């Protein structure tokens, strides 16, 4: 979310799920919303079918939302910057920009004008494969909307240009003023139930909770005082990201890793590299509800409890903080994660005492401005959207209504960069990865559900019939998919959903882990791996092998 933090000052969904039907144009890109966020997609469908909104879908694959789209632009994976720069070019060249909004609420406009001057739709067509006329049509439709809302997910951010992709989308909203009102905005859809919360709580290497930078002396003095520790204890240096941690292990910088509720042996890119790193560690602790793939490398495994057995809060993609409540007792001796952390901290010399999740929340709210007005008792009445600065504040459904968090919205001049790895003679196809409706992330949860597994029992490779014909592959044949980093075998599924030259796999299946193939090249700012584009080859293998 580094892109929006730079352009607006706050890296979260600007609007709310409930105001989606107020948009008359929806621009959805890099989000297979009906499969990854099905209930939110219902609001998009409602906007189209019930209120007559026009949906612009920008996605290489013919996903279910294509059936609802007024316009479907199928661009080459990784060409997003070229495409959106061209849309900005059209909006400026045809006089569709919102001049008064630009003058009052933004800065850097001249730089943008200069940067997109040469980005004609014809030039973008040569890179993206999208006809120039369609790019013009999409730009006009979005710019001339009364309320235009942009939605995206990992299809935008999981590229080496992920931060750039977000900034060029942000340019479109700032150019047209489609922000700060119901039915507008820049709306990144968060994939997991509490990604937003984990970020808000300081689960990042450069910030404490509430995105307060560790590099700020003022912030460190405040946290040290609140936590009753010497100021010198808090490090002023940014820590390492997951991908850097894995490299750091190999270079001997990192000796011990403590993992709570994650399975990097399935979800990280370039799994063979992750395995080497985990083997090399001096000490690995895994705290989880299952002994998953990563736990096989642990020195100690600590049993935690599931969401159904504990109290606490999750923060949803629309910044809404909501309670979870225990419905069942913990299995065996398993304990809530916070109790384990508490006991470990006190063994390491801390002097902490919390008697409940509510007590931890209360402390967190005192050091986290966005959450300052919330507590578990208020949340009993229903969820609250941050920022909620005081106990009387009703929460904030729409961000940036009067001013941006950073003051003025910042336009960004973004040059096009090609993906880290593109098809060549040895690896002639593009592999893109993502989710399907019936399974979830690494599959640790959903693959233990007999019902869901019966519907989607085995890993598949989506391949276009033309590509399949070239390799003489029929539906159901086993395909070996190889990249420069590894290989997996999965069943072919012939479909026109994926364009010619691009195959698609999910990362839900441990036995055919797509992330053995993916590249760990990352976006230079956000450090998000490029899961959506890497080069692969395929060959047919027999079922007996």
């Amino acid at each position, binding site marked *: 979310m580094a892109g929006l933090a730079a352009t607006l000052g706050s890296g979260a969904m600007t609007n709310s799920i409930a105001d989606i039907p107020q948009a008359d144009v929806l621009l959805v890109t890099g989000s297979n919303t009906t499969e990854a966020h099905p209930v939110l997609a219902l609001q998009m469908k409602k906007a189209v079918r019930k209120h007559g909104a026009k949906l612009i879908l920008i996605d290489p694959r013919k996903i279910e939302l294509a059936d609802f789209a007024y316009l479907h632009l199928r661009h080459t994976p990784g060409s997003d910057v070229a495409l959106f720069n061209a849309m900005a070019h059209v909006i400026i060249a045809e006089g569709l920009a919102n001049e008064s909004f630009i003058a009052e609420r933004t800065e850097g406009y001249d730089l943008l004008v200069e940067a997109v001057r040469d980005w004609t739709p014809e030039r973008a067509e040569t890179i993206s494969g999208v006809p120039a006329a369609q790019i013009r049509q999409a730009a006009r439709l979005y710019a001339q909307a009364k309320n235009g809302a942009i939605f995206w997910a990992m299809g935008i951010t999981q590229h080496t240009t992920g931060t750039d992709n977000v900034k060029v989308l942000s340019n479109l909203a700032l150019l047209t003023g489609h922000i700060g009102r119901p039915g507008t905005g820049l709306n990144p859809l968060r994939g997991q139930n509490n990604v937003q919360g984990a970020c808000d709580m300081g689960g990042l290497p450069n910030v404490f909770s509430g995105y307060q930078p560790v590099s700020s002396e003022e912030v460190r003095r405040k946290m040290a005082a609140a936590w009753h520790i010497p100021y010198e204890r808090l490090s002023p240096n940014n820590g390492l990201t997951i991908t850097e941690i894995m490299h750091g292990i190999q270079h001997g910088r990192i000796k011990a*890793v403590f993992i709570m509720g994650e399975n990097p042996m399935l979800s990280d890119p370039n799994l063979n590299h992750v395995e080497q790193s985990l083997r090399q560690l001096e000490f690995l602790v895994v705290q989880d509800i299952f002994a998953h793939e990563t736990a096989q490398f642990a020195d100690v*495994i600590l049993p935690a409890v599931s969401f159904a057995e504990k109290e606490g809060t999750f923060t949803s993609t629309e910044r809404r903080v909501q309670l979870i409540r225990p419905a069942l007792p913990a299995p065996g001796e398993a304990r809530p994660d916070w109790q384990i952390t508490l006991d470990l901290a006190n063994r390491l010399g801390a002097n902490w005492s919390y008697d409940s999740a509510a007590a931890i929340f209360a402390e967190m709210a005192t050091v986290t401005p966005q959450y300052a007005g919330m507590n578990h008792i208020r949340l009993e009445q229903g969820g609250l959207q941050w920022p909620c600065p005081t106990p009387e504040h009703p929460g904030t459904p729409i961000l940036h209504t009067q001013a941006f968090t950073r003051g003025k919205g910042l336009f960004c001049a973004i040059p096009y960069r090609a993906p880290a790895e593109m098809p060549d003679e040895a690896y002639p196809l593009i592999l893109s990865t993502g989710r399907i409706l019936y399974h979830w992330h690494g599959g640790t949860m959903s693959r233990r559900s007999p019902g869901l597994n019966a519907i989607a029992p085995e890993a598949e490779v989506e391949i276009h019939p033309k590509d399949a014909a070239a390799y003489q592959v029929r539906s159901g044949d086993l395909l070996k998919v190889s990249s420069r980093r590894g290989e997996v075998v999965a069943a072919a599924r012939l479909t026109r959903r994926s364009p010619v030259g691009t195959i698609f796999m999910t990362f839900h299946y441990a036995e055919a882990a797509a992330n053995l193939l993916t590249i760990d090249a990352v976006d230079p700012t956000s450090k998000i791996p490029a899961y959506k584009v890497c080069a692969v080859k395929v060959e047919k293998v027999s079922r007996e092998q």
Partner: protein
Amino acid sequence: MITAEKITHTTCPYCGVGCQIDMHVKDGLIYRVDGRWDNKVNHGNLCVKGRFGYDYVHAPDRLRHPLLRTRAKSKNGQKPGFTPVTWDKALDLVANRLRHIRDKHGPDSIAFLVSAKCSNEENYLLQKLARAVIGTNNVDHCARL
């Protein structure tokens, strides 16, 4: 018809939409999950995972005891062995090893992965442990993945 012993209002654990659910429990089993209407998020709706994807909570391979590795990390793909231990033994060992590694190699030789599936309270507390007790900012999670 089965009658619930207890109906718990809680939040769906799957995607980031945050649907509100009623979890019906009888004999220690979740047997039904309904979408709640009293909110602006899901209006009673749920997807197939949110309605039916809860078997994992009752899975026989849920972890029930702290486990300690008994066999050295093998290089040839041999399965590791684990033995159950008490909480005291497990936490003492983790604390001692972390303290030893921090004293020998410095706080930045230790890294913590927090979780997009755990609660706000749990994430807050583990990053506080990393920063205030160990003294490192090596804290991340799979938001990027």
